């Protein structure tokens, strides 16, 4: 319980303005750094899903879940370890197009990393790679040697191995 671990927090919420502020304030107030944060729609129409990655002890994690679920517009919050989820991040590299023709090695890197070319024009090409953080970091290091014009990486997105049962929960709320 006292060991610091990486947890993926999944929060199902109403889609209302200001909720991001309310949720981030729960972490801010306890001086917990948010490693990454993603918001999107979920499998249920009208329900949003926050995916937040944080490092802390399980004991504190449980208390944070309690504070999250206490919010009026939060339907349910879960926390999971890496082993309990299927997760990835995605990233984009913008690189000079010349390099694609002049540096044979780049083509090999792209092939081996399972990265995908999104677009190519005379000036630059854009490479997209989805995967674990370590794979993205490896690709970043390899491409750095040739020069990266722009780089961006998304927050983690994750689905859990267990069921979430949000529809059932929503029915219970209605009871």
């Amino acid at each position, binding site marked *: 319980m006292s060991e610091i671990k990486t947890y993926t927090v999944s929060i199902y919420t109403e889609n209302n303005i*200001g909720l991001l502020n*309310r949720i981030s304030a729960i972490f801010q107030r306890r001086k917990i750094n948010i490693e990454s944060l993603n918001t999107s729609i979920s499998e249920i129409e009208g329900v949003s899903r926050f995916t937040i990655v944080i490092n802390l002890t399980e004991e504190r994690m449980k*208390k944070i879940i*309690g504070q999250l679920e*206490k919010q*009026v517009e939060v*339907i349910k919050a879960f926390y999971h370890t890496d082993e309990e989820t299927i997760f990835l991040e995605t990233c984009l590299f913008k690189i000079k197009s010349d390099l694609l023709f002049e540096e044979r090695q780049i083509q090999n890197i792209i092939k081996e990393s399972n990265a995908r070319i999104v677009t190519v024009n005379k000036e630059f090409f854009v490479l997209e790679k989805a995967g674990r953080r370590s794979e993205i970091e490896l690709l970043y290091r390899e491409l750095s040697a040739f020069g990266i014009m722009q780089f961006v990486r998304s927050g983690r997105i994750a689905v859990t191995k267990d069921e979430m049962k949000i529809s059932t929960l929503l029915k219970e*709320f*209605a009871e």
Partner: protein
Amino acid sequence: MDTQTIKLQDTAVEATQRITGKEAIIKCLLAEGVDTLYGYPGGAIMPVYDELYKYQDQLHHVLTRHEQGATHAAQGYARVSGKVGVAIATSGPGATNLITGIADAQIDSTPMVCITGQVASHLLGSDAFQETDIIGISTPVTKWNYQITKASEIPEVMAKAFYIARSGRPGPVLIDITKDAQFEEFDFAYKKCTAVRSYKPVPKLNPESVQAAAAMINAAKRPMIVWGQGVILGKAEEEFKAVVEKSGIPAAWTILGVSAIPTEHPLNVGMVGMHGNYGPNMLTNECDVLIAIGMRFDDRVTGNLATYAKQAKVIHFEIDPAEVNKNVNADIAVLGDSKETLAALLPLLEQKEYPEWHNRFKEMYKIEYDKIIKNDLKPEKEGLTMGEVLEGINTVSKGEAVIVSDVGQHQMIACRYAKFNKSKSNVTSGGLGTMGFALPAAIGAKMGAPERPVVAIIGDGGYQMTIQELGTIFQTKVPVKIVVLNNDFLGMVRQWQQLFFDRRYASTELINPDFVAIAKGYYIDAQRVTKREELTGAIEEMIAAEGPYFLEVKVEKEDNVFPMIPTGASVSDIRLE
């Protein structure tokens, strides 16, 4: 679900009519049963005030002298009446001045709806005159908040605001309304809110947890109850009394829980916490089962958690799941509304008495009485004590008064010694410790319980934080009784400086004005007591007075409040001197 105060017959849809947003707000307030609200006008809320003018025969608006006073008055009203308190203010500084009261209501679970005006929606984010992001500012201290920019949102949002404020664990809600939405016309119809999809105010009662709790309680040798405000908020006073009497378990209270059962109840063993009674604090660390009911194990109650009730099994009756295992791990958690859970528990309890165990509390009370209480209530020294003033009020009011206290030494004395016959009688700022709370809260308390005497007990420091509310008292003629226990010090801070900072009295001595002259400046009857022989007569005169009354009592300058559990110490390291 007795706490769900919304009844089905109230949810009928009113016929649709075309009105402005400003009028709709008034109609929503009336539909929610609001009769009194506290506030201060200003540019962005002026349209609503224009409607308040038209509806003044149905809605009593009390003009406080500062928006903070409006929130505390709304809190006082809510705490004694059990209804939702309402405060209203303009945008910008009007709105930010509400924040202290909102934070106080949040930590003390007080149902309150605050309405703020906002600049017109096309000006949002333009740094317009008196524009402030009150939604952003109030988010961490509200149970819920929402900004209305279209009149059509008003009925549903207002209904939701009142439902959220009063249901489950109550709390403050802030609704910010842009000026254009106040003027806009729309088709108004009102329907009370009875559910919000993502919000489950009361956890479903689990009969197994109640059975497990009953079995543990029945098998206990030295059980002890600590109850909090959850009993009062759940309107569970009768159920609670029945549980205490059937189980025969000594019961102690937190300062927000007091008055749920009468002070003189034979099983009431006193107050827990930093300045609580000797017995219940010491015996917290000797009981074998600790039954916490509607309380949240605040650090001022538990002292050092590492040495708090470690020998005991803990049963926690609680409405808010986030409170379970937050500070103290529960062996059994009974989630739900206290009225429901205690009613379910009662038939499973064995009729019992614990005479030997109860005697331990009595023995410890005797020790505390000889060492502290006697000297507080019946002092032999020359200077007046705060305790004897409370004792005088008890004698005259016979436990029928609502006592509103501020924050500091006088508050601890008031909570320790005030006698209560009725529930909802102790109004004080518990969690936030807001100096300046009492004077405006007393105004609201008197309006929320007009048939009861309301006595505000305030220190000379806190009094001056909201002293301008004397103007509200004068204007409304609300007959509150104000007692300032004046020691010319910020007494509690001075006490800590004496005990923990080698008497370095940094910025705690106050050079005070003539408080009696100030009260009289507001045309409030007032007198000052400096001698013991004048005290009883002055209290009698104050209680008998028809209108508001101000009584200043000059008390000993450097008295300390004991017992005391120093910060970070264990409850069983409680000091008697």
